[in-house]
């Protein structure tokens, strides 16, 4: 179980970490670096609670080895707000009542962020498709879908 020294950028800060070969990105984030906003719901790539952005794309961090992240960019839920200013998705998720227990919330937000980054004006079907890998047992999804729609509009207004 050799250790590998990797350099990885997490939420715009460079971290040097020594990781064993079999350590997953989720384990590195949660157990090694205490980015506990990333949640462990199944450790099998099936629930989406551990979703992070890897070079801008949403991935299940339980299905990525930490060593694969050498030299790459990661964004976790902790990296969505800047200087106390919430990401539009975080604002609209609160406003639309899309938060209940909060356990799927980080992964849900990251998947939605990945969607809006590549498609700033998604249709409802595109939103549903983008969130299909993020299981939620509390909300019934509709308020989350509405929040993503509203965030897209708010983001467009900010850019305009």
């Amino acid at each position, binding site marked *: 179980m050799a250790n590998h020294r990797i350099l990885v950028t997490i939420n715009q800060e460079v971290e040097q970490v020594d990781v064993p070969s079999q350590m997953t990105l989720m384990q590195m984030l949660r157990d090694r670096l205490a980015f*506990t906003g990333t*949640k462990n719901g199944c*450790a099998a790539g099936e629930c989406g609670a551990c979703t992070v952005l890897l070079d801008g794309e949403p991935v299940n961090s339980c299905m990525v080895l930490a060593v694969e992240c050498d030299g790459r960019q990661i964004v976790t839920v902790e990296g969505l707000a800047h200087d106390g200013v919430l990401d539009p998705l975080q604002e609209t998720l609160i406003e639309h009542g899309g938060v209940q227990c909060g356990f799927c919330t980080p992964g849900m937000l990251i998947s939605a962020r990945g969607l809006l980054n590549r498609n700033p004006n998604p249709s409802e079907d595109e939103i549903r498709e983008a969130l299909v890998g993020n299981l939620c*047992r509390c*909300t*019934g999804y509709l308020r989350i879908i509405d929040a993503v729609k509203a965030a897209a509009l708010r983001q467009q207004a900010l850019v305009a």
Partner: protein
Amino acid sequence: MVAPISEKTAPHPIGDSVERVDAREKVLGSALFADDLQFGTGMLYARIKRSPHPHALVKRIDTSKAKALPGVKAVVTGEAFPGFIGLYLKDRHIFCRDRVRYVGDPVAGVAAVSEEIAEQAVALIEVEYEPLPGVFDPEYGAGPDAPILHPKLGDYSVANFIFPKPGTNISNHFKIRKGDVDSAWPQCAAIVEHKYHIPHVQHVPIEPHVAVARVEEDGKVKLWGSSQSPFAQRNLIATALGISQSDVQVIAPYVGGGFGSKAGVSMEGLAVAIAMQVRGRPVKLRLTREEEFYTAFVRQGVVAYFKMGCDADGRMLATEVSFYWDGGAYTEYGVNITRASGYSSSGPYEVPNVKTDSYCVYTNHPVGGPMRGFGMPEMHAGLEQCIDELAYAIKMDPVQFRKINCVKEGSVLVTGMKMHPTGLSECLAKAAEAINWGKKNPPSAPNKRRGKGLALMWKAPAMPPNAGSSARVGLAEDGTVTVSVGGQEIGQGSFTIAAQMAAASLGVPYDWVRVATPIDTQYSPYEWQTVASRLTWSMGNAVSAAARDARQQILEMVAKAWNEDIENLDIIDGKVISYKSEESISLKNIVIYGIPLPDDQGWVGGPVLGRGNFMPTYVTGLDAETGQGPRAVVHYTVGAQAVEVEVDMDTGKVEVIQGVAAFDVGKAINPDMVRAQMEGGFVQGLSTALFESLQLKEGVLQNPSFVDYRIATSTDVPRHIQAIIVEVPQDDGPWGARGIGEHAMVPTIPAIANAIYDAIGIRVGAPPYTSEKVYLAIQAAGLLD
């Protein structure tokens, strides 16, 4: 004596959809859940050796190889823990001792320096079993030929309203004998009879169970866990270990979804038992998703028989019901589901003659426990389909039939209790109107058919008659308020409700109120459990009383300082005002330091600390033979759901096009959160109707993963779910409120089943109504071209 809330006090946070107290930290990712707590490098990891057999005697356990593995710090078996554990019936050991009763039953546990080493050690534990014949069907299990799974059932300690039958596998038999069904059948113009098998499902909280235990050198236990029931865990674990409740401290941060699975005690005792062997070191046990599916509580399966009859005018005359609950290996909690389904077995209808036998049966299946609805979704699944059929049998519209028979204020219920004021008729009318009942929409394609269905529900909090709540309200120098409660935030919004009620009762703005977290049995006031949709009502009463107590202390202090009559004083927006002198004073500082008397003549007041509690005192026992008694339950929350579905005749796929939910919550403290419960519950109900079942083959679970056990995703939910709030106040609810959490998923299965029937004229039978099952039913009915 606590002053009542003044009419002059504007309780503005009540009925306002204020922002949740926990929303911001949850979107930031800073909200802490049990697995997020940090315990440093000394922490050990636990794994569990589990039975591969559904039923067997344990002949020998050899832990020597496991103990010899480097990195292993403790290996524990049941030998050291003879005590019993369980909520209503103590039928369970922490670790199995002489017998295993389901696949997954814990026989030994390991603590090691890593999860990997713990896992390796578990594999090195050798257990010799003598397999025994099993019970995999509750009806068979209740009969005389079944092997007996708990030969010592008669020795177990049991709550006085649970009736086990020693010498059988029946751990509770609840009976209703109201009127005389046999003399009613000849009077009936129509009778329907059906048998339903409702499968086991799982709660599937997205956060799996996790517990961290540390036992100090002096034997005191600390337990951090994802828990709906920190105080019940304190009590049950202390009792099982034979130690004081005050020497068990349970600390419970936010819960990542509960739905009942984290009520009572399930895996927490294992972590504590292992930690006792490695004193001073925290031991973490977290269930894998696979373990979550079959070793945490599951929703019991049930085989239900209904016979229901009505006269030619559509008046229900008789209902005869038998429930065979598939309680699983241990029924310590499930026995009360049997009781709850018994005392509600008429459904929300006034029926003069009812005969019910509800049996809780031990089987070699996963352990049944509380799940959102506590027997009501399973019971209503069949019952509400029979109601539709009865209506059709006398050629009456099902909505009209329900209108005639549904319970109203003063109705004599199945237990003899009289119904309190209720908005069920209004829920029915509003749901029918919202779905445009009676009008059929054209399908979206020629190979599809549309239909509408509706179902009613009722549910009472199922709990001991005297389940209590308490709360504390303290203030800081700047006048802000901290509410301490023992009820848990599991997503339903209980902390927000507590903050709203405290603000309203005290007279301060909502954003001045904080909620003390995490729940900690050493510091938080007592709460029985976060279950049964009881917090808004029960904990809410305690919070309101605590805030009124604090308010009274403040008013007495100011009255003394100003030499005024307390009747002239009020607290509005964080200020004490006098209606007489028109003076005012901010709460700032005075709530800690008191108020100086004029001319430096001393002080009045002191740190303000409000306390309040609530416990229902009026619930009576029910006769063991007839189930009759004056007051079976505290109250019923009632409601209706209506759906429109589209069935694809080529594939059998059922799509829910729209849903309507209307529930009588007494008073919506936070209307948006009430609607969110109705929507989320609808989707959980939809998921159990269309997708979910634990597939058990000779006791072995075939689908313990999200790939094989599918729950509803963002692509499965309808575009519109309309949530309608009805408010007929509860006499002893805070501002008239009663609970809504569980009710929201109760009528969904039958509403969808009735809609499928309306679409294609077929009763598909047992849920889930998967494409395959519906397609085969279409084929069997000869409806294919």
